[in-house]
């Protein structure tokens, strides 16, 4: 124990080998693994909360007519469901994975800025406490969609908007600090010999994601600030009477919003690029092109934002520009998909649960990508826009994309985290139930959209009744299936078959060189990289 990592400070009276236990350990921790765990638990909790709201949505839409909730409450559910899933579930889950894995993957002792790491986590629960509490205010919580278009969110919103704005500010601060930590760790703390082109792809994709985060979260902060001043301080950024424009809101929002959706998928690409080679027992095909493709997707993501705004009355040349740029994204994304397939090609595959989720990811994400491409075609988007076709698109890329990849990652690394193998039967049940129900849930939404059902409505015309019923049944089934995961996790955390340092035969990477569970401090001295 010669490393300074373990050094006790002269002014620190306590010896931190007897670090605080119980709650204090978690509140005060600076350890990347603790913080990673906190992020992951928080994300899963939020997923359940956001999912419960989705269940309210699906229950109301089970039949035509208003039965369970008022339209206003329905809109709050839609809005908060979107916000929670995006900012509370997917993003923190990725940050949790980054915290756990990046230092281990690059041979670093911890994250570069450990105290800030703790801060970026602990402000999150408070932000969501504010957001959720606003639902109980008089007049209810935010009801203007997760995209909070002005002037619905300014002049015409209720008073919880102020809390919404500040909650978003805090989430933004958290993401920015988390991202700074990730970048600095990757740039500065790689073990000697861990050159750029040796970095695991998960690290690469997170590096680029972190850059996106730092570039766009402040823009979100800016636009919510304008919403706040428009609502409460008499400015007219989004009001034509004072020379502003409601569409300007959308431009600024989507300048954040589109990169944001890639923030929610790039780390998935990294995860899948780790898992497929491991279970195909064959090195990743086209490592370099994977890196370049990720960077191109990130670069392009800054110039496609207005594809969310084709119906707002942009001039023709704007519509064309954004259509072409958006379509271009299919090229680097395609490269990724092809590389994954090529990695499987002539491998020796086995189908453990992480691999199952990764394979499902490749197929279902690609389906979501195809519908994205269809949405990119401006004249046809006039028909699809703001219908369930869009809802189908983004749930395919988000649920069977991002969420599935997070499950894949969780199963892949769970033995490393807990030191125990998870219950294989339960995990497989989780996979198959999820796979089937997710398609019953989201596939028919394409049909609803094409047949003309708008999104964000609590009630619908009779022709949509049957398909909505199927969707809702799929929804309940998918929701219940997620409880299986909860069971798997609880079981694995409590014990089970001991996991070896490298439980997966074909897995590569530094994280598998340390024992399972990974010791509290890994790589106090840098590992040797071949």
């Amino acid at each position, binding site marked *: 124990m010669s490393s300074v990592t373990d050094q006790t400070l002269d002014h620190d009276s306590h010896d931190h080998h007897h670090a605080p236990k119980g709650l204090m350990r978690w509140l005060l921790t600076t350890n990347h693994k603790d913080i990673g765990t906190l992020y992951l638990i928080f994300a899963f909790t939020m997923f359940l909360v956001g999912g419960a709201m989705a269940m309210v949505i699906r229950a109301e839409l089970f039949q035509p007519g208003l039965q369970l909730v008022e339209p206003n409450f329905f*809109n709050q559910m839609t809005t908060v469901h979107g916000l929670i899933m995006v900012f509370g579930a997917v993003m923190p889950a990725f940050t949790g994975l980054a915290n756990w894995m990046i230092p281990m993957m690059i041979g670093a002792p911890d994250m570069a800025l450990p105290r800030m790491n703790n801060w970026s986590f602990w402000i999150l629960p408070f932000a969501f406490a504010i957001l959720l509490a606003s639902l109980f205010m008089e007049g209810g919580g935010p009801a203007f969609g997760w995209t909070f278009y002005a*002037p619905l969110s300014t002049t015409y919103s209720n008073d919880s908007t102020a809390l919404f704005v500040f909650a978003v500010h805090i989430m933004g601060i958290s993401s920015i600090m988390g991202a700074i930590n990730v970048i600095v760790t990757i740039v500065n703390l790689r073990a000697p010999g861990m050159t750029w082109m040796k970095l695991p792809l998960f690290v690469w994709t997170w590096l680029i994601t972190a850059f996106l985060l730092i570039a766009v979260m402040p823009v979100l902060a800016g636009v919510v600030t304008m919403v706040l001043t428009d609502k409460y301080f008499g400015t007219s950024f989004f009001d*034509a009477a004072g020379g502003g*424009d*409601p569409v300007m809101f959308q431009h600024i929002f989507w300048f954040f919003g589109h990169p944001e959706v890639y923030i929610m998928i790039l780390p998935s690409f990294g995860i899948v690029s780790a898992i497929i080679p491991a279970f195909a027992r064959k090195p990743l095909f086209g490592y370099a092109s994977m890196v370049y493709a990720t960077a191109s997707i990130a670069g392009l993501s800054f110039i496609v934002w207005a594809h969310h705004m084709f119906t707002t009355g942009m001039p023709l040349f704007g519509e064309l520009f954004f259509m072409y740029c958006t379509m271009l994204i299919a*090229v680097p994304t395609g490269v990724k998909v092809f590389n994954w397939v090529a990695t499987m090609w002539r491998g020796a595959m086995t189908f453990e649960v992480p691999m199952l989720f990764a394979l499902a990811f490749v197929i279902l994400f690609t389906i979501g990508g*195809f519908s994205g491409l269809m949405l990119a075609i401006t004249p046809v988007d006039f028909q699809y*826009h703001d219908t369930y076709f869009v809802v189908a698109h983004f749930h395919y890329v988000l649920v069977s994309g991002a969420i599935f990849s997070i499950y894949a990652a969780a199963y892949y690394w769970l033995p490393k985290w807990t030191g125990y193998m998870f219950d294989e039967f339960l995990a497989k049940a989780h996979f198959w139930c999820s796979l089937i129900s997710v398609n019953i849930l989201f596939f028919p939404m394409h049909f609803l959209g094409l*047949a003309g059902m708008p999104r964000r409505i609590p009630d619908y015309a*009779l022709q949509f009744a049957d398909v909505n019923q199927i969707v809702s049944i799929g929804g309940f089934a998918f929701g219940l299936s997620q409880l299986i995961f909860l069971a798997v996790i609880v079981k694995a955390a409590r014990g089970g078959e001991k996991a070896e340092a490298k439980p997966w035969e074909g897995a590569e990477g530094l994280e598998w060189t340390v024992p399972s569970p990974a010791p509290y401090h890994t790589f106090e001295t840098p590992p040797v990289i071949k």
Partner: protein
Amino acid sequence: MDLKKIGLCWLAALVTIPSQAKDMPLNLSQGVTDISGQVYDLHMTIFYICCIIGFIVFGAMFYSIVRHRKSRGVKPANFHESTKVEILWTAIPFMILIGMAIPATKTLIAMENSDDAELTIQVTGSQWKWHYKYFEHDLEFYSVLATPKKQIENKLAKGENYLLEVDRPLVIPTNTKVRFLMTSDDVIHSWWVPEFAVKKDANPGFINEAWTNVPKPGIYRGQCAELCGKDHGFMPVVVIAKEQAEFDAWLAEQVAKQQAREAEEQRLLAMQLSEQELMDLGKRTYDQFCSACHQPNGQGLPGMFPALAGSEMVTQDRQGHIDIVLHGKAGTAMAGYGKQLSLKELAAVVTYERNAWGNNTGELIQAADVQARKNAAD
């Protein structure tokens, strides 16, 4: 094995449930206009291209999954790079995309050209109704959801066009290029008729243009397609296309009716309506136009829409009350109803509010009182 059984059950569910579905087209409609046909063709083209690519990609993947599995005793290969293939599968998708972009650009250019329109209609959205104004004619009116509340609350059987019916549909002539000027009085709405492939946002303070040319007479239904608050789901669009001659007749009739109504209004000024009459009409008007926000019991939604029962303005400030109903309050959801409702209805609804839900002021408001406030504003 157990897992397989579970899976099979699911599959069975997946197959049987949709087989009971009825009536809903599973694909985009071809619509009735030339443009909507082009859009449909584009949609199908891209869809087929995606299917083919999907078939190839997933095909290769499944082949690999079946053949290249460890349980078959294969030895993994070790290749992990090939510049040639990689260039190929960058270039081919790129070419495919260009192939998609060309027809898309053509259709888009056609859609955005609203020159040479023969009829112009201004479409104004507001929470939660549409207002149509025939630009070249002396005719304008509101169009509001006609589905009774009872049906929405499941107290009555739902009609055939549940939620897709309005009190006064927009009427347009066939085989005429009709231009729409979209705008809004409050939040953003979006005017959408799928059969025309027209969806355009109605932005407050700006005017967006769109056009259509409908070849076939008929009734076409759509909905508001931008979240616009509580009753976004209850803001349908109904358009009736009529042959030119029929349309002309309809237009003349409507213009005449509108003028007659204005004359009637003037006559009304001298009349006194009875309390019974005012309260009945008032309740009807209130339930139709005001209860969405202020609620049928006058309690409003705290924090969003004020209660009218016991409201200071309603119980005391008579002029203020008439004014706010006539002109609305700028910067709030409270729109002015001076244009939408007749003097009689306005008088009735104000009377109703001043006497319902325990507001018992005992006051009657007559058309002349409303007219007086209208004049005062001019």
